[in-house]
């Protein structure tokens, strides 16, 4: 095992990786930008190195500065987390050239899966079912004939893309000329590669993905599925394992295909093979060659620490786990708590977290990247933390998530917490009747100002505070009442005891 690992990331995933290292007795080096001097990953790491100003392009994306920090601190390996440089084959190559270990798959596997049309061809060759689609397209005529062949509507996608950027649904051939031009421009701007292609647009699929682990000895296993259908514009919001749509037979078939996909590119480490599932059929979407945001749900239902396995495999050790016929054990759910306002189009919300209380108790895990008094800025991904629960079955997991969401108290920034609370009570979600169009079908989840009792409680709270301020002669929240010994004000109402501090004298 490594003696020291540098974590080239920030936020909750950097904290997560540092924890895995520390649990294995591995020393850690955090890197930080000026905006992150006091961020949690810096506070929990063994060492911390400044790598530049706040913008990611001048800090977390500076490959040479990060590699230099590893050399300087004597770290033998670099864990990229997700995002930033996690799926940058060039960075992986550079790290290896510098005599360090990149904790992830070989650069060639990243590159093979990063080019989406090349990946499709390789998957077809490996016998993996893919969504019918085209090669990269040069002009409208090619795109129209591809659409006619595979059937409308089609989805226009960037060859080098990911994360939903630049995707467009094309209903009919007439929409293509404008859309193709715009998509090529956007792809060029976002990925430096203007090539686009089309594939069949599934009307109502579920997003189901398979977690795989592979070591350098040739052992490749899968750890079952995660369903991530609750999305907004291709950004996942809620994930779970197992999927309510997957039985043991389907799990075995999808797992088999995912293992074949990983083998086809010589995969090593932790990876995720994403599929769209509709009407009993599943189609390869893409492979994410990194640890994923939603990995904890798999950890809960298998008991495997995926980040520790990444570290073992990167250190040349074999996987420490074998597939288990009892998987999945129970049910796990994850809600992404982002600094976004669900009632205003999920616009990013910034500000200071003036108060924070994270949930705990049985079956609850909080993977967070925030602390009290932390400033949420606009420089990085808005994910503040992830709330993950585990229970015996799906119904109990939902109840547990609702409990944990209520325990979570974040003051100062708007977050997706109230959205998640609303979903936990929504009948279709509770019945497992979900698809990637779930949000479209339930617009009320992001429009409502809450239940009537929310507004009533807010009005009553404000009025009582106003009244107390007037009675007490000041607007400052001073509560002498709570300091009085229980029962000392016999005969006086609780309310009055609280609001007439002068009466206590």
């Amino acid at each position: 095992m490594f003696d020291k690992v540098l974590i080239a990331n920030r936020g909750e995933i950097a904290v997560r990786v540092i924890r895995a290292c520390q649990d294995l007795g591995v020393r850690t080096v955090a890197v930080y930008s000026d905006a992150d001097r006091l961020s949690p990953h810096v506070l929990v790491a063994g060492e911390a190195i400044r790598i530049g100003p706040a913008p990611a392009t001048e800090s977390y994306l500076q490959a040479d500065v990060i590699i230099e920090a590893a050399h300087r601190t004597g770290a033998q390996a670099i864990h990229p987390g997700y995002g930033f440089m996690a799926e940058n084959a060039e960075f992986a190559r550079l790290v290896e050239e510098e005599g360090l270990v990149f904790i992830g798959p070989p650069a060639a596997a990243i590159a093979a899966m990063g080019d989406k049309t090349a990946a499709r061809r390789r998957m077809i060759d490996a016998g993996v079912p893919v969504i019918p689609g085209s090669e990269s397209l040069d002009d409208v005529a090619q795109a129209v004939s591809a659409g006619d062949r595979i059937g409308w509507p089609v989805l226009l996608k960037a060859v080098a893309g990911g994360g939903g950027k630049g995707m467009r649904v094309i209903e009919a051939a007439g929409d293509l000329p404008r859309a193709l031009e715009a998509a090529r421009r956007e792809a060029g701007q976002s990925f430096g590669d203007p090539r686009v292609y089309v594939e069949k647009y599934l009307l109502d699929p579920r997003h189901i993905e398979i977690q795989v682990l592979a070591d350098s000895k040739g052992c490749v296993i899968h750890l079952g599925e995660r369903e991530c259908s609750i999305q907004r514009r291709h950004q996942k919001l809620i994930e779970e394992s197992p999927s309510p749509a997957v039985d043991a037979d389907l799990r075995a078939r999808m797992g088999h295909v995912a293992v074949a996909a990983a083998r086809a590119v010589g995969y090593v480490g932790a990876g995720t093979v994403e599929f769209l599932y509709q009407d009993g059929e599943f189609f390869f979407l893409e492979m994410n060659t990194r640890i994923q945001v939603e990995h904890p749900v798999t950890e809960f239902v298998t008991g495997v620490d995926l980040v520790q396995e990444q570290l073992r495999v990167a250190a040349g050790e074999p996987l420490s786990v074998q597939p288990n016929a009892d998987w999945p054990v129970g049910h796990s759910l994850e809600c992404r708590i982002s600094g976004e306002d669900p009632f205003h189009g999920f616009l990013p919300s910034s500000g200071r977290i003036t108060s924070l209380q994270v949930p705990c108790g049985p079956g609850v895990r909080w993977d967070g990247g925030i602390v009290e008094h932390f400033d949420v800025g606009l420089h990085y991904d808005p994910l503040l933390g992830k709330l993950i629960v585990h229970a015996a079955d799906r119904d109990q997991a939902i109840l547990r998530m609702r409990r944990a969401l209520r325990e979570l108290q974040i003051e100062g920034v708007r977050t997706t917490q109230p959205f998640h609370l609303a979903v936990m009570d929504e009948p279709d979600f509770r019945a497992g009747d979900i698809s990637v169009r779930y949000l479209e079908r339930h617009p009320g989840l992001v429009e409502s100002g809450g239940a009537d009792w929310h507004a009533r409680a807010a009005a009553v709270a404000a009025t009582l505070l106003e009244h107390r301020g007037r009675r007490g002669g000041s607007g400052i929240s001073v509560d002498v009442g709570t300091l009085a010994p229980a029962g000392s004000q016999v005969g006086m109402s609780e309310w009055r005891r609280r609001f007439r501090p002068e009466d206590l004298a």
Partner: protein
Amino acid sequence: MSEQEIRYFATIGDDMREILVEDGRLRIDGEVSDADISTLPGSDRQHLRMDGRSLCLFARRRNDGWVIELEGRLFEVRVEDERGRYIRELASHAAPVETRREVRAPMPGLIVRVEVEEGQEVVPGDGLIVMEAMKMENELRADAVGTVVSVEVAAGQAVERDAVLLRIE
């Protein structure tokens, strides 16, 4: 010792509730309610007991009201007594038609460019400010004829949602 009844008006958006406070009792829109609030010393953290519910929330004073955060939802509540409400209503009827307008940030973001100067006249459609949020640039444009009386931000500055960027008369 009995305290005098005070009639409050608590308004959230267009939704107003009449809340009577008298001698430790509460009446919300005529309905008797059992409620009290307690503050964690030195914090904005409150615990509200109300109608059989037990609720943790945050409260901060702002202008003529309170900002309440409850289960991640934000409520701005204006609280007035009868006299305060009367005065405000008089003032709002007496006030001249508002001619001064503030251009506010529609989202949090970075100011990329300020395209006007103080004293400059603008007509509808004129670009005022270019903002960047989530890596997309957005241009804010004038929607009426006017004169820029003040510019409150500069290029490179990060702003919150609703921050005042410009004033136009």
